[in-house]
């Protein structure tokens, strides 16, 4: 098991390094123009050259990258070109907000899709048809349209929730819950659709395995076999799709945060992107990749716990 964890960890770190190299190269390859973009068209050649040197952009890209990497390893991701704020601070102050809605959506997705997927697979018949139909629709409609619909209906028409704004958990747990409920629902629906299909599929698959018959032939009831053996075996594929969906949730959060005016990474990302704040964008890319790597690692560990064969892989 220890070897398994170590291998996963190494491959995650390698992935992170490759992403940082690619992102850095693509973001900084425009060298000279960057200073010009910051200073505007009216700046003289001299001040542009000065700014370029100040930002370290006159160095070869490889030197720049290793400079960035050595500082990144100490937790310093540079400073924003526009606000002068350290990138690490800009990201870490918003991280908790985004993670709270993304993790909330992941948990809701996991719970609801296991219930729906197992119900559809075990019950079959009309339940199966209805669940499948709904999940195709839930997947088809883009997540941000669902978010817009939720805002219009529950916040603007029914006034059950405040349409926008975020209350930190530390300030008021109940208001925090009220402020993240709609965003989490908006994010979850598309995800639930995808994961439900997968859970249903893998439960149907597991139900037809030979060992189900053999266990029942030993006098175990159908329910016992389903809830102990079938669920555990269907858990692996379901977790794999949940990992994929989590990546999608991080992307979806950017739009949903914008709609509900939630001060998370999404807002930072949109502002940094429209300004061309390269150090901030770079920091966001690396932070997102790191989150994905960590989540994948956790899911791999769960997989290993669920299925002993995985530990050998």
């Amino acid at each position, binding site marked *: 098991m220890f070897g398994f964890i170590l291998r996963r960890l190494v491959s995650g770190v390698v992935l992170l390094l490759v992403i940082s190299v690619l992102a850095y190269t693509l*973001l900084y390859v425009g060298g000279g123009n960057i200073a010009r973009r910051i200073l505007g068209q009216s700046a003289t050649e001299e001040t542009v050259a000065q700014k370029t040197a100040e930002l370290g952009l006159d160095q070869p890209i490889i030197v720049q990258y290793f400079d960035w990497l050595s500082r990144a390893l100490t937790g310093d991701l540079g400073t924003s070109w526009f606000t002068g704020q350290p990138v690490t601070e800009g990201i870490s102050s918003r991280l908790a907000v985004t993670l709270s809605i993304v993790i909330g959506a992941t948990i809701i997705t996991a719970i609801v899709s296991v219930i729906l997927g197992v119900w559809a697979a075990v019950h079959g018949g009309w339940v199966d048809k209805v669940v499948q139909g709904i999940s195709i629709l839930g997947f088809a409609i883009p997540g941000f*349209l669902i978010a817009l619909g939720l805002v219009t209906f529950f916040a603007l028409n029914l006034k059950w929730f405040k349409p926008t704004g975020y209350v930190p958990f530390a300030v008021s747990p109940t208001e925090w819950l009220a402020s993240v409920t709609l965003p989490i629902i908006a994010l979850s629906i598309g995800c639930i659709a995808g994961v439900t299909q997968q859970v249903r599929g893998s439960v149907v698959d597991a139900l037809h395995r030979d*060992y189900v018959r*053999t266990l029942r032939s030993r006098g175990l*009831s159908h329910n016992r076999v389903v809830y102990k053996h079938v669920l555990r075996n269907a858990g692996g594929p379901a977790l794999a799709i949940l990992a994929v969906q989590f990546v999608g949730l991080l992307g979806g959060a950017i739009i949903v945060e914008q709609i509900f005016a939630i001060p998370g990474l999404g807002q930072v990302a949109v502002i940094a992107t429209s300004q061309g704040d390269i150090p901030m964008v770079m920091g966001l890319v690396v932070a997102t990749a790191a989150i994905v790597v960590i989540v994948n690692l956790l899911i791999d560990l769960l997989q290993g716990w669920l299925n002993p064969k995985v530990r050998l892989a």
Partner: protein
Amino acid sequence: MIDLTPATIPPKAARTSLIVRLLKTPIGLASIVFLTLLVLSAIFAPLLTPIDPNQASLQNILGPPSEGHPLGFDSAGRDVFSRLLYAGRFSLAGGLLALIIAAIIGVTGGLLAGYYRGWFDSVSSWFAGLLMALPAMVVLLAARAVLGPSMWLSMAIFGVILSPAFFRLVYASVTAVRDELYVDAARVSGLSDGSIIGRHILTVVRAPVIIQSAMILGIAIAIQAGLDFLGLGDMTIPTWGTMLNDGFVNIYKAPLLILWPSLVLALTCMALTLLASTMRDTLERSGTKPKKLKQRPTAGIDPDKVPAVTHDEDHRTAARTGEVLLDISDLSIGYAQPDGSTKTVVHDVSLTVRRGEVHGLIGESGSGKTQTAWSIMRLLPEGGHVTNGAIVFEGKGLAHATEKEMTKIRGRKIAYIPQEPMSNLDASFTIGSQMVEPMRVCLGLSKKAATERALELLSHVGIPNPKRTFAAYPHEVSGGMAQRVLIAGAISCEPDLLIADEPTTALDVTVQAEILELLRRLQDELNMGVILVTHNFGVVADLCDRVSVMRHGRIIETGPVRAIFNSARHPYTQSLLSAILEEGNARGELAPVPPQTTTQGVQS
């Protein structure tokens, strides 16, 4: 992202006109009609509205619908209806660009990686993993930060990000067919790689790629709209996303403004997804149809629909056996079909098993012997049920017993040994826990007592290191070992009747002999009645007291084993017997090997 990849689509199905069959389904028809209208309205936008979508006017800002302006005006005083039509051009074209790039990269990469394997395979698979590791939105934002707000560039990049969807699909299909015999044959006959890929492999991947394309197009259109909705797109061209952005900003002042682009976008994405899922369903259904036709029983006279040849009782056997345990009479088993009819797979089977007697059920695969065995435990696959006849076990009718009654009988009274040892153990649990669980339920033992009994049983069935096997997972033991574990599990509650479904078929020849010897010993010790399903007359000769020969779901000949071997009367039985005689030493005496000396140990 969702994975609506079709599981397996037979290559032939793609050949018949898919469009025609799609148009016959209501959802397929509606999707195609909607998408066609959408594309036409985008292409012929100038004919449908004379107004320039970018023509702004200050006095019309957020103006209501009026003559010639059915949907009113947006925040810059531009005509909403005209923008909606022209936006279709850009939104659809952007989605198409992403789709085309994703398909070119993904399909080519998948074909090459799947066909040639080698380094290209590992490199491209790794890249596909890399592309899936970042949210597309983050990559698009990063690209926007450097490259500026160009829809075409964003969509081209998104195409690259989406390419793994095609890559994985094509890769999986190609690796599945590349080792097929017909591809091998083509290679041997001297066809070039190019024409093999073109003729044999592309036909296999075509249908799944078309389905995936519909999905991808929907995703691309949605993400493009999302990017524009964030206000990060090119604001100079009308798209559904920029219209959504405008509507959202003015949601308090003009709530209807956001409705139209939302509606068009939602309907488009729905139509594409529904089209994909309908295509998949249609192809899957057409793929299974011919098979079902073939399985349907042929009309006319069934040559086996005659009374079974029954041999006289053999007194030597009768003396050794006890009372009747199981009495099956006129048993028929049927499967419910999707069209409401029932397909009968076992007809009018009658047989008895006495205590201490081994009754062999022999026949080719598909003769109904396993179905008969499963029906005794009432563990037929989904849709299967007893349509006629009676199963009486120890004086109790099982054919229509409730599930609760059956649960009490299974394990305690009737036990089962399956054919394939590995797939009949749950790979996620240790061997020990799979033995302990039923004993606790059936015998009400404590965990400790059940563990002790499991270890005893493992040692009793000839496992050299019971503790190690108890703690092992199924994939850590050999097939012969696993079969011993299953036998130990089956006899753990000391059943009266044991149903063994080809218990040695999946094993090596040397292990087969040991397992048969073990079964004979246990049957003797526990004085069980046994139904032994097999296709091997050697096994019958070795173990059985009585034998019934099955063909096409019927018993055609039955009697004491000596009578069948000495004077088989049915031509089918005679041909089965002569077949094994030709094989040579199959009937030879199996040397009794003490299991302890030659068993394969636990693999570490």
